[in-house]
């Protein structure tokens, strides 16, 4: 089948393309031509007139919780992928804190099997330690052979410095990162950021230093072992500063941030809304400011959602008893375009790096090329559309988002990948 995306602005910094009012001809899922098309080339194609929307390399979210296996009532591989496509992603990496944890080739294959044939590519992050218990490193060689692209005990940090050292040393053989949920165990367990607001609300606090200590530990250990250390969902001012300094010193460290950590502060917890409860917790204005600075100067490499589905009945409880996390796949691009593009923090090209190219590079996944013969792997963006978030329209099985009813500017209107297109709320085989 032949389709053509007509009247589009094509931007792909990796392929050095930035063409206004162009067209993309795709046949059997592969790019045939980018540029002006003759009427004979348009013959027999299905045309999509996209009135100057932007076509960019398919976005990739490197921090997604799919809940399968174990909590299929909250999300499955299938619903997670649908949610990703609806949110504008052509690829995601799923975190290993499932039941059982992703610490064996069998679980990796199960997830791959469930994801097979979907538009969205599912890459798997394996557990860094067996059962995520922090005692023995996981069978990383076998997991890498099964297709794992990184390792993490996400939900918690790797339990001890000794195990972290081993994990960094061992994973180095396969050049994959150790992705750390940076939180010191002895300072963990609270319900929100420690500060004026936690004092005011009487909620048990998590100090920002709980994150800083583990970021520091990871940086020091990465330098010592020469392993790859990736900071998941960075949230504090000091962590951003330490990552910046480590990068300047040539240490192999990368970092991601979630849209909620650059959009919100712990002020929104004042109503005890459990959809404002996540870990790391929402921080303060000074932290958000440093994160913005870190996004601008390249300290923070990627934007990732930390998409964490939870059932309604689990969130509709006392704040302290509610589980951490919010869904993010379907608000991430809108928030990024609203908070970073519209406010001129980042350019579109910089956003493409942080949401498409960098996460794939960190996980050593090929990046989408806009060249003849390449698989068409792209996201279509409307940078100007003003829309209102409506959780009832989400494809995710869960609805736990603090962004419901929020007005955003800019969104993804479609994606193409794996011989499929998602457009106008429909999956089409192309």
């Amino acid at each position: 089948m032949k389709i053509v995306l007509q009247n589009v602005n094509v931007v792909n910094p990796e392929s050095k393309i930035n063409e206004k009012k162009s067209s993309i001809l795709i046949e059997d899922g592969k790019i045939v031509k980018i540029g002006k098309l003759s009427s004979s080339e348009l013959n027999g194609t299905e045309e999509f007139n996209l009135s100057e929307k932007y076509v960019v390399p398919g976005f990739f979210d490197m921090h997604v919780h799919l809940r399968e296996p174990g909590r299929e009532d909250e999300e499955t591989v299938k619903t997670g992928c649908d949610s990703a496509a609806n949110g504008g992603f052509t690829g995601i990496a799923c975190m290993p804190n499932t039941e059982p944890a992703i610490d064996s080739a069998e679980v990796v294959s199960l997830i791959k099997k469930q994801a097979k044939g979907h538009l969205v590519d599912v890459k798997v992050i394996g557990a860094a330690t067996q059962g995520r218990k922090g005692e023995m490193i996981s069978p990383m060689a076998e997991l890498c052979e099964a297709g794992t692209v990184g390792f993490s005990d996400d939900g918690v940090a790797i339990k001890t410095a000794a195990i972290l050292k081993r994990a960094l040393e061992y994973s180095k053989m396969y050049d994959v990162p150790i992705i750390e949920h940076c939180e010191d165990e002895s300072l963990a367990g609270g319900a929100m950021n420690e500060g004026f607001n936690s004092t005011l609300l009487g909620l048990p606090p998590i100090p920002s230093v709980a994150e800083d200590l583990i970021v520091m530990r990871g940086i020091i250990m990465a330098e010592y072992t020469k392993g790859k250390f990736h900071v998941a969902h960075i949230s504090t001012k000091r962590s951003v500063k330490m990552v910046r300094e480590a990068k300047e010193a040539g240490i192999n460290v990368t970092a991601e941030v979630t849209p909620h950590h650059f959009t919100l502060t712990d002020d929104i917890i004042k109503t005890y809304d459990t959809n404002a409860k996540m870990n790391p917790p929402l921080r303060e204005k000074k932290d958000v400011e440093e994160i913005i600075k870190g996004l601008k100067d390249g300290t923070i490499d990627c934007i990732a959602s930390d998409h964490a589905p939870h059932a309604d009945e689990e969130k509709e409880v006392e704040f302290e008893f509610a589980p951490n996390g919010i869904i993010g796949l379907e608000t991430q691009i809108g928030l990024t375009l609203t908070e970073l593009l519209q406010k001129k923090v980042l350019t579109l090209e910089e956003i493409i790096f942080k949401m498409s190219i960098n996460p794939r590079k960190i996980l050593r996944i090929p990046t989408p090329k806009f060249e003849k013969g390449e698989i068409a792997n792209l996201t279509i963006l409307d940078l100007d559309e003003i829309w209102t978030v409506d959780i009832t329209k989400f494809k995710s099985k869960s609805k736990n988002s603090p962004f419901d009813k929020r007005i955003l500017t800019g969104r993804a209107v479609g994606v193409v990948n794996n011989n499929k297109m998602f457009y106008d709320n429909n999956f089409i085989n192309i």
Partner: protein
Amino acid sequence: MPLSNRHLLGLEGVPKEDIQLILDTTTTFREVLERPIKKVPTLQGNTVVNLFFENSTRTRISFELAEKRLSADAVNFSSSSSSVSKGETLKDTMRNIEAMKVDMVVVRHSAAGTPRFLTNICDSNIINAGDGIHEHPTQALLDMYSIREKFGKLEGLKVCIVGDVAHSRVALSNIFGLITMGAKVSVCGPSTMIPRNIEELGVDVIYDIDEAIQENDVLNVLRIQLERKAREYFPSIREYAKYFGITEERLEKNGKDIVILHPGPINRGVELSAAVADGLHQIILQQVTNGVAVRMAVLYLLGTMN
């Protein structure tokens, strides 16, 4: 003039006029409690549920008595909230209770914000009887009432809250209420028990108990939780008693009259020496009576808003 809010979730943001109204109404009910027949028909036909997810016999009895003195129908519901996943959710419990045509709910819970959460899921007036380490507004109101009874005013008085401020719901409510009423508030305790950024609320922090005694008109002494994890915040009971305990010696040394309040029950020999505790006997009993009157005032003012 009615209160500005149909719930009493805490004293944060409660305007001066409201606090004034509650305290003045308390005086009226205080008189009722002195009569031979200590009962008024004000809330006849109203049903109040005392929803206690945490053991607190004193507070519950005080509320229950207040409800009965106002001729309301009082129903008690007690449950342990320690388990998260076991059994019914709070939402389900609340829905069931509300189906019984309840007008007001008095709630005590170990998790901060629970009273606020209840306002989202039911229509009754909610009264916070203590939520986690957040607020305990009726306790603070009765403390303020007792202070006002002594001094005839609150404005300009210097009040110090002594003890484990970080893990006290009484402290925060007192701070909010007293500052609104124009008192000068400070806190005194081991630094591990003073919450972060407390100065931003407009209170001074004192680490020296003698200074606290010297500088203030009133000490509101909190109960040190000996049984809970609060014990990890100071080295030993002996050290606490030695450096932060209030003794007759200390009071004499600083040579001045000072009013001491304590929400009870007292750990004798810890936050107060036995002699100081004995000297407080009368005041503490008075506080108990004031507690009933304050709760009558709150129930009455909220109950007659509907």
